[in-house]
């Protein structure tokens, strides 16, 4: 690093975003109104699986104020089906944003109505009559794989993908194992992080210039336009996407491109009038995107005498709902954290993804890795309990050791840094481990059920899109990149634009901190553009905000652009001040920031430099004509294409880690689990803004606690979604959220320029931790926690009904001589 200034990076700088958000002046997509705008409402399927016999829109169209309607049959000949990322036969799926012949999940859009006001659009949508012929729904992934009821006839199967990830010598490890633990079934439930702001799209297909304009809150616009351009048969440069303030995404808003397509098509039909679609909460719950549900079958774990895991084999079945869409990337993304935080070298995971008649899944905070990390934490805890080894000791025996970093995993991922034993020690200290152990023993004597659980997890950030080739060798994606622009504008203002698409992560603030250190000025003097805009021309095909990467990809791009600008400023100042470049110092004068010639006692301020380049350029000699003070920089991750046959290669740049401990008591009468104490310890390498990092940790912790105890997407046997409102889904509130004790360590990443690791998703640590604590509370009664979601009902069924979680049925221990 050339600039060693650390005046601003590392400080809890107040966020630049606050000024507008606190005043209610945030600009969210639903706040935008455009002249001549129409309102779109979807007509959605009440059935999970049915053939569409007839769509009659005539009554809706007869309603005054209704401008038109749109059906799947109408858009099919105008568009190409969406790109499928997966290989044959699922590549044959014909995915349109409005159902054409069949509906495949409850809530699937069948038609759209356009009206002069939102309430008229509501009224009209109820007048659209759709005749259906019911088909057998399949809501369970393992059942779906029997292909008795097929969702997509063109694919001919419900299986999206299958692949075996095998490393080391599994057979040998099992032959030599001192003990083997068999676990019949584990299940990670379906939930969604449900951003508080629903999806919103305003789309206009402007006939004046044949461009499509979007004002929306999609969180991965550069990906969306790749899908939309191909789908809508329009050159990609004619699609402009702008985002502004976004009310949370957590990955879910990556998946709004089908609705974006409908808005464009509807606008075209309405002669170019802008179309606004504002999702209702029930639409969001039933038909936006959920997180992946996953079942872990026939797990076998080989261990040595001391409880060190030497091999794991297992069969994983992932449920992606009715359309694979962003999937089947989830079929490989979990393998970024293949061994979790553990040292075992031998493993075979047979991974299959299936479609079911449920809402399509999409990236959701901790996407695809949290399911796998939960599985590994369950394995570790179940083995520990079977072998009578304390949970903390079991982990210490199996953790990757601090001196082993950078650590290459069996599948070729390189963990940059970490110190899991130290995090465990800090967490134990913060929670008062020994005291809780004593209290727990006392409580047990009184018949109270208190459990202590540990969850260790990883938040892998900045992913290698080459992993897509493991799923489909023809997928044209690899590497990762991000763009940024840093300029000195005409009056000397420093203006930064990034290709990210923030939703509360404070990118304006941290980007300003980085640039402030490069130029040695105050972040107050730096303005960072809000939101995303394709016309800023700072995006690459990977630009967006997802997968815990801004601190690495985003800030590396910002840093690169700022360095470029700094170099140009220096060169120009040396010319103007008639000195050498190494004589130039970035300082502060009476009129603000300036560049000084140290030996000449002369200086020029930012306005002076910007003036020359922009509006006074006749003073510049030709050799200075390349100086623009408007510097675009594309940062590229140093990845290689993985070996797709061996499924081997580095899939992620940084590995932030989290270690949580929970103390939980299960009420003996009501079976309600209650958190008595909670600790979260985080390591995301060198911290850019500690207040922002701490906030992200708390947020991820709340999402995880909610997911573990309160939040689940429930379907009945025929595919009715039973949790379609917040009142049913019950997102965690202030009443349920315990006080979190926060600790952190910094193991700087050798892989990023600043030592920072991407963070924010949090790896669903509370889900692992709470499962562990509940098991600890109940194990003496022969119960194994086999599902990631647990509430009073589950615990009642396990403890009283003895219907589920019975260790003697689920787990078998084989001891070898």
């Amino acid at each position, binding site marked *: 690093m050339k600039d060693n200034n650390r005046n601003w990076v590392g400080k*809890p700088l107040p*966020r630049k975003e*606050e000024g507008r*958000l*606190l*005043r*209610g*002046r*945030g600009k*969210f997509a*639903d*706040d935008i109104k455009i002249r*001549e705008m129409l309102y779109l409402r979807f007509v959605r399927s009440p059935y999970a699986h049915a053939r569409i016999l007839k769509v009659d829109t005539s009554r809706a*169209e007869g309603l*005054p*104020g209704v*401008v*038109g309607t749109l059906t799947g049959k109408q858009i099919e*000949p*105008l568009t190409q089906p969406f790109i499928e990322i997966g290989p044959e036969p699922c590549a044959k799926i014909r995915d349109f944003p409005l159902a054409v012949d069949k509906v495949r999940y409850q809530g699937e859009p069948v038609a759209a109505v356009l009206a*002069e*006001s939102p*309430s008229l659009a509501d009224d009209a949508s109820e007048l659209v009559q759709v005749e259906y012929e019911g088909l057998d729904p399949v809501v369970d992934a393992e059942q779906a794989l029997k292909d008795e009821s097929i969702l997509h006839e063109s694919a001919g199967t419900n299986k999206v993908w299958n692949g075996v990830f095998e490393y080391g010598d599994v057979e040998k490890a099992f032959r030599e194992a001192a003990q083997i633990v068999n676990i019949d079934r584990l299940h990670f439930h379906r939930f969604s992080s449900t*951003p*508080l*702001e629903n999806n919103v799209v305003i789309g206009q297909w402007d*006939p004046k210039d044949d461009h499509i304009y979007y004002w929306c809150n999609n969180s991965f616009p550069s990906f969306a336009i790749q899908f939309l351009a191909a789908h809508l*048969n329009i050159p990609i440069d004619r699609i402009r996407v702008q985002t502004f*303030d976004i*009310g*949370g995404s*957590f990955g879910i808003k990556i998946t709004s491109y089908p609705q974006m397509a409908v808005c464009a098509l509807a606008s*075209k039909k309405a*002669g170019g009038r802008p179309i606004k679609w504002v999702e*209702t*909460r*029930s639409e969001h719950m039933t038909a936006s995107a959920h997180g992946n549900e996953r079942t872990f079958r026939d797990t076998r774990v080989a261990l040595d005498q001391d409880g060190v895991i030497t091999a794991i084999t297992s069969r994983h079945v992932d449920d992606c709902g009715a359309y694979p869409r962003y999937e089947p990337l989830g079929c490989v993304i979990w393998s970024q954290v293949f061994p979790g935080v553990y040292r075992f070298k031998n493993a075979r995971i047979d991974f299959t993804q299936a479609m079911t008649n449920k809402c399509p899944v999409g990236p959701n905070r901790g996407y695809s890795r949290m399911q796998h990390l939960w599985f590994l934490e369950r394995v570790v805890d179940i083995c520990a309990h079977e072998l009578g080894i304390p949970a903390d000791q079991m982990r210490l025996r199996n953790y990757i050791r601090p001196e082993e970093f950078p650590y290459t995993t069996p599948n070729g991922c390189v963990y940059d840094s970490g110190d899991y034993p130290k995090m465990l020690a800090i967490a134990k200290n913060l929670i008062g481990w020994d005291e809780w152990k004593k209290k727990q023993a006392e409580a047990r004597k009184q018949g109270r059920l208190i459990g202590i659980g540990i969850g260790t997890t990883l938040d892998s950030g900045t992913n290698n899109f080459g992993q897509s080739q493991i799923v489909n060798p023809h997928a044209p994606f690899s590497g990762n990149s991000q763009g940024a622009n840093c300029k000195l504008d005409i009056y000397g203002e420093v203006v930064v634009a990034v290709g990210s698409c923030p*939703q*509360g*992560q*404070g990118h304006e603030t941290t980007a300003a901190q980085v640039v402030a250190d490069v130029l040695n000025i105050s972040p107050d003097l730096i303005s960072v553009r809000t939101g995303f805009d394709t016309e800023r021309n700072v995006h690459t095909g990977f630009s967006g905000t997802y997968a815990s990467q801004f601190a690495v990809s985003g800030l590396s791009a910002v840093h690169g652009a700022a360095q470029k600008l700094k170099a140009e400023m220096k060169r120009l100042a040396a010319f103007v001040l008639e000195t050498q470049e190494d004589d130039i110092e970035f300082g502060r004068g009476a009129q603000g920031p300036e560049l000084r010639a140290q030996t000449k006692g002369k200086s020029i301020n930012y306005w002076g430099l910007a003036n020359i380049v922009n509006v006074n350029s006749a003073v510049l000699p030709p050799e200075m004509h390349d100086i623009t003070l408007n510097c675009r920089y594309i940062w590229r991750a140093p990845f290689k294409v993985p070996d797709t046959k061996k499924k081997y290669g580095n899939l992620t740049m940084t590995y932030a880690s989290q270690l949580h401990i929970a103390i939980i008591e299960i009420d003996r009468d009501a079976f309600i689990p209650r958190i008595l104490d909670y600790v979260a310890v985080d390591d995301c390498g060198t911290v850019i803004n500690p207040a*922002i990092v*701490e*906030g*992200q*940790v*708390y*947020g*991820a912790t*709340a*999402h995880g606690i909610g997911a573990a105890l309160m939040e689940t997407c429930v379907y009945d046997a025929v595919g009715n979604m039973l949790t379609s*409102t*917040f*009142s049913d889904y019950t*997102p965690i*509130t*202030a009443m349920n*959220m315990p*006080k979190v004790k*926060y600790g952190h360590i910094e193991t700087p990443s050798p892989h990023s320029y600043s030592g920072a690791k991407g963070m924010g998703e949090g790896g669903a640590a509370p889900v692992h931790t709470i499962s562990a604590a509940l098991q600890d509370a109940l194990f003496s009664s022969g119960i194994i926690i086999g599902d990631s979601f647990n509430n009073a009902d589950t615990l009642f069924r396990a403890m009283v009904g003895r219907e589920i979680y019975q260790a003697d049925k689920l787990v078998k221990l084989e001891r070898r001589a």
Partner: protein
Amino acid sequence: MPKTAAKAKRSLKPKEIVEPAIARVPITVRVNGRPYSLAVEPRILLVELLREALDLTGTHVGCDTTYCGACTVLLNGASVKSCTIFAVQADGAEITTVEGLEKDGQLGSIQKVFGDCYALQCGYCTPGLMLSTYQLLSHNQQPGDKDIRKAIAGNTCRCTGYQNIFKAIQVAARSVKGG
């Protein structure tokens, strides 16, 4: 696709001014100290009135079912969820929205404290939370942990895990008490 475009154009209906089937109802409200007289459809919710008719977009909609509190405003001094009140029910009322928390262009004390304590991330829930805080502190200047939790039980935040919001409300209470 010239063929389809032409076809689409034929299927278009001309723009029309649509009068609602049910007559609009005249109401008068005072929002953030400013009086408004207007006629609204009886089915329009208070939050729609604020956002659409008065362009006060700081009040948000998150759940449509009175769970999340993103739409919280003060109605005659009491915090209400404006997605669960018809605009006509607010006739004659005094309403305060987030836009009314500023004092002479400066952040109000609750706004300032929320910022100082990093009590927001995406900021979507923040206006509602600040108004629930306002309501709490106008009745109780020494709220305990439980009082704070109860006061914002109806305000969902998906970003912050509530920790810094708890802190902000405690600090705000101290600053209110201290004058």
